[in-house]
């Protein structure tokens, strides 16, 4: 416990990235105005499709890539011109890789030997890391004699022993099979909780991002699309890209028009929009204009009770595909040429070609402006005014 506390004090690290840009010599700009403050102990995940600039940003933090413009601070110290070795970071490129000819002990000790640390300190650090990772019994083994999971842990051990302020991980689980990946996700979370070291993790896998991050940075084409806690990003995506990228199966999108009565129409399908959402649409002057409705597959239901709650949001559909996943069924259908997925209970027992009714939980849906792809949000000033008004009225009532 003491060891961990000491480590904790030594390893406090905050990072500040201010308007960081990366332009390659051939003129291609990979990262645009990247600004982010990373708090101590945070587990930040950069996520986005290939080529979105997440690895480039990580490499700029490591110092492997020069920052074209902008400022990078580690613990309030400007490190733009500092060599990677002097930034007190540990980087895991692909953590499956180990020195094949060295024992587990030597693999972990090698980086420290390079830094010319005394033998007894190296021994202490390696033993401590081996204990944290449950590798004490394997210290004399070579990588060939280890299982995939054990090798992965040794690779993490190589980073741990350095006592770095920041861990940088570039798609460390991408080489693993699905089962080992799930196992290692858990190991990484446990490890972060033990070491409480600020970690920046790059992945294109949104499940890794959702399960591991304290905050997620969603990127696309070199821009930050959204930064937030996993649940916040899932529940309140800023735009169509984030809404579609985070979540499996992804959010459904239906193009349509909301009329003055608050009825959303897409082809022959009609859905009654709740008052608060309709107010939002009116406020954003989107009534009568094309709009995109977004709804998560788990917010589409087949239970009678939900249909009774939202009688104006029930559609009759024909099942195109039904995928039984064990506890639930992914049901695919078509609504006015929009492919829609609903996650329903496996007990329902649906089959391809079945006709059935689905209720949309309209309170959970989002509306997006198709021209900007941004989610419609409420005018915060209006909300503040309304809240004040309500509070005043409540106070008056109490006084009376």
């Amino acid at each position, binding site marked *: 416990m003491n060891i961990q506390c000491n480590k904790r004090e030594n390893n406090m690290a905050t990072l500040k990235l201010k308007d960081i840009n990366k332009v390659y010599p051939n003129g291609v700009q990979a990262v645009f105005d990247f600004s982010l403050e990373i708090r101590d102990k945070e587990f930040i995940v950069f996520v986005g499709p290939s080529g979105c600039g997440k690895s480039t940003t990580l490499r700029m933090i490591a110092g492997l890539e020069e920052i074209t413009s902008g400022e990078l601070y580690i613990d309030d110290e400007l490190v733009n011109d500092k060599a990677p070795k002097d930034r007190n970071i540990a980087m895991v490129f692909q953590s499956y890789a*180990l020195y094949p000819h060295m024992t587990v002990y030597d693999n972990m000790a090698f980086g420290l030997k390079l830094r010319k640390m005394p033998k007894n300190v190296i021994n202490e650090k390696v033993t401590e890391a081996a204990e944290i990772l449950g590798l004490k019994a394997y210290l004399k083994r070579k990588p060939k004699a280890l299982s995939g999971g054990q090798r992965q842990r040794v690779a993490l051990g190589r980073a741990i022993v350095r006592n770095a302020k920041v861990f940088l991980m570039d798609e460390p689980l991408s080489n693993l099979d699905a089962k080992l990946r799930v196992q290692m996700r858990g190991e990484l979370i446990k490890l972060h909780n033990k070491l409480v070291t600020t970690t920046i993790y790059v992945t294109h896998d949104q499940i890794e991002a959702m399960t591991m991050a304290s905050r997620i940075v969603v990127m696309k084409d070199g821009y930050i699309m959204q930064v937030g806690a996993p649940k916040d990003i899932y529940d309140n995506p800023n735009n169509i890209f984030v809404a579609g990228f985070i979540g499996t199966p992804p959010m459904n999108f239906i193009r349509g028009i909301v009329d003055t009565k608050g009825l959303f129409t897409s082809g022959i399908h009609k859905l009654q929009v709740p008052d608060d959402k309709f107010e939002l649409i009116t406020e954003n002057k989107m009534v009568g204009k094309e709009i995109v409705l977004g709804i998560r597959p788990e917010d589409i239901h087949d239970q009678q009770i939900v249909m009774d709650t939202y009688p104006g949001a029930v559609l009759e559909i024909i099942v195109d595909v039904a995928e039984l996943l064990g506890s639930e069924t992914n049901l695919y259908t078509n609504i006015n040429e929009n492919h829609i997925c609903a996650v329903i209970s496996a007990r329902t027992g649906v089959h391809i070609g079945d006709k059935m009714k689905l209720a949309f939980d309209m309170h959970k849906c989002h509306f997006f402006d198709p021209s900007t792809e941004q989610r419609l949000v409420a005018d915060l000033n209006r909300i503040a005014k309304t809240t004040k008004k309500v509070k005043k009225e409540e106070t008056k009532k109490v006084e009376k």
Partner: protein
Amino acid sequence: MMYRYLIIESKKDIKNDESMIISLFSEFIDFTKKETSHNAIYLFYAHESDISLSDVILNIMSDTLSDLRLFSSFGFESEYDLKIHLEYIKLKLKSIPFNKHAYLDDKVILNESLHRIDDELRKHILKKYASDKMMMECIKVYLESNQNTSVASKKLYIHRNTLLQRLDKFNQITGFDLRIFLDAYLIYHLL
């Protein structure tokens, strides 16, 4: 005996890490000669090694926090052939963006160059077989017979074992095993 070489290239100056890299590689490679330039180390040796060099280079990168890449050659029958190949690869590496691959060999080079195959590339990959019409015909028929040795040997009017021997020899000299899909795919572009 087959002659081989490694190039360990740094994006910047390699001098700081030079002694460490050489001492590390000497743990599993008996190099006969070494050369250095400001951003690269060239190690020459004449034995096989089952060490995964791609793992080694990735580890060195994370230990030194430097941008490195490693080119590993296949075997050459003479030092002269090796030298010609090395000069060609030095030039070729310049056209491949540094961060794209940490580990490279003839397969990666060929894969990177599929859109601009020229006689020189053909010569360096196929080595002595570049002008061997019989071997090229054998390979073409074998690949066009869906890598089926029985069918291909019948078409070529040779014994199946003869064909197998030729494929083995080709693998020994070039490092491409035509029974592996990716190797077959890459070599087919050179026929």
